């Protein structure tokens, strides 16, 4: 069961766990803003490319 769960996580999360973490943090911030009475519709379109950009930068740095 544990192995199956790990396989599912690996299937979805893939090569860079920090992408998933960045997405969850961005969504948490958007949820907090929405519940505080703002409408942070602009947050995700800014945060998502930033998360991917950071991952690509790490991949480029890892290749030297």
């Amino acid at each position, binding site marked *: 069961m544990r192995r199956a769960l790990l396989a599912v996580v690996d299937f979805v999360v893939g090569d860079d766990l920090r992408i998933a973490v960045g*997405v969850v943090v961005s969504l948490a911030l*958007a949820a907090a803003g*929405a519940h505080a009475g703002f409408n942070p*519709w602009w947050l995700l379109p800014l945060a998502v*490319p930033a998360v991917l950009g950071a991952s*690509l930068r790490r*991949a*480029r740095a890892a*290749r030297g």
Partner: protein
Amino acid sequence: MTGNPLLVLSAALASAVEMVEALTIVLALGTARGWRAPLLGSAAALGVLAVCTAALGPAIGALPLDVLRLVVGTLILVFGLQWLRKAILRAGGLKALHDEDAVFAAELAHAQAAGRSAAFDGYSFALAFKSVLLEGLEVVFIVLTLGANGGSIPLAAVGALVAAVVVAALGIVVRRPLSRVPENTLKFAVGVMLTAFGTFWAGEGVGVDWPGGDLALPAIAVLVLAWSLLYVQVLRRTSAVATA
């Protein structure tokens, strides 16, 4: 709904990418060792996938819409970003392109070297089954999540089915790996669409009210495409500078 054509297209392109990869292995097995066992293995895997889809589809569809949008939107967003990351790294020259001809040659050599029993070719059956099942699971995941959130699992399934029939027909006709299929371009396009769908639905799930309602979805897709192309250009420029 604005997202329906995008939904069908996403399901079709994702299926085409995965089908091409599975087809390469099945073709190598059939060419090297005969067609019966790999075709039976593929059929068995498709049967398992059909059962998975039939079991999981109604379960996903039964979830409350807000939960569905948040959970499935987040999963699609993470999944889409992984596809996009890989496609951008390949297009930017930091990762080798997937070479169907090389995969075919390697699988052919393995298949020719592997032992064979007189009764039934278990090697071909097992390898075809595993390949079709693993590639197919990604398609099932995308079809179910896109379909459930987009309000029509059958519509997403039609997109996947059309792609599967086209790729299988091409495979039967040419009996060679479909190396001319621009696999990374397809992967790039699917990554863009999954990321756009995921951003839109996950945003709705956490309470974001998108300006323009459903019209925000194609706008997000255009935005994702723009920054993805920008990242490819940046990576190409920096890798060209590094090799100069």
